[in-house]
């Protein structure tokens, strides 16, 4: 690839990534000039989606786990379980994260 082609590639990645971020705002923003209300369906999605998206993100983090080899995803599952339990108990973001990460880091060193 020439350096010109490399620049074009970076520009393409930048523009497409920005579009994925901007599109909902461009389509549904109820600007002052356009007196359109956000459609009811989109308002509903705005309320119902976040919890589904957070669920999606947790599963997304497990995408590269090898379930049948090595530590078989045990450190990941127990790390997540630790976060959930800590959060049910104390409900402090940092504490839950620290304990979960510690559990994970210990387990990947112990279970080889």
């Amino acid at each position, binding site marked *: 690839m020439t350096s010109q082609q490399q620049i074009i590639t970076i520009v393409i990645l930048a523009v497409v990534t920005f579009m994925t971020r901007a599109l909902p705002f461009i389509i549904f923003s109820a600007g002052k000039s356009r007196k359109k209300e956000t459609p009811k369906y989109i308002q509903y999605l*705005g309320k119902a989606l976040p*919890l589904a998206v957070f669920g999606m993100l947790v599963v997304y983090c497990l995408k590269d786990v090898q379930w049948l080899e090595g530590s078989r995803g045990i450190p990941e599952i127990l790390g997540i379980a630790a976060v959930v339990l800590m959060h049910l108990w104390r409900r402090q973001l940092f504490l839950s994260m620290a304990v979960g990460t510690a559990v994970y880091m210990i387990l*990947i060193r112990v279970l080889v």
Partner: protein
Amino acid sequence: MLNASQSTFKKSLKIAFKLSLPVLMGYWFLGITYGVLAESMGYSYWYPLSMAVFIFSGSAEFLGLGMLAANFNPLAAASMALVVGARHLFYGVSMLDRYKGMGWRKPFLIFWLTDETFAVNYNAREATATEMLLVSFLDYFYWISGGFMGYMFGSLLKFDIHGLEFVVTAMFTAIFMDQFLKEKELRPAWIGIGCTAVSLFVVGPQYFVIPAMIGILLMLTVFRKKLEPSYFEEVRK
């Protein structure tokens, strides 16, 4: 007058810094990894740097490192960016309300809308416009500085931080729990987890996100009549 606005800014910065701390840990770890990888692939510093500055999406940048070393293929670049970036569409829809009336801040809030920034800003219900903007900016700064450190000093790293990347998973899980304990209507959580898990199992790790998103949209649409009342009738009091 000036002093007063300065001190409110300082206060906002303090709040934003506290909110963004989990992202600091995650982004420095991932950013360093990204910088180390870029350096080990033999790129001059401005490739990883310009990607961090202009793309600001970890998954697209890691892909970019591979693409820049391969044959020129703009169509593949565009479609891969679309595949890995599609999840941003959901963040945008979820933030339509929160980012309303942001004026000059809006383009920045949109450009800086990563998984982590979305998670932190959405979860911080009481955050002001300035605080959300500062969280977004700090996250951007963490990512770029992490990449820079990895590129420059990655080879000097001696201590074993392997596994620290789990802090990102832990953050999403903790924020998921935060939301889960706040909401009355919990079925979207099961829909999100279920659709993504099924899609990951069926489609595999490379292309599962878009089918998962379609599944979530379908389920939320099918169950709209059941779910919608809990958001609009009792909440608006």
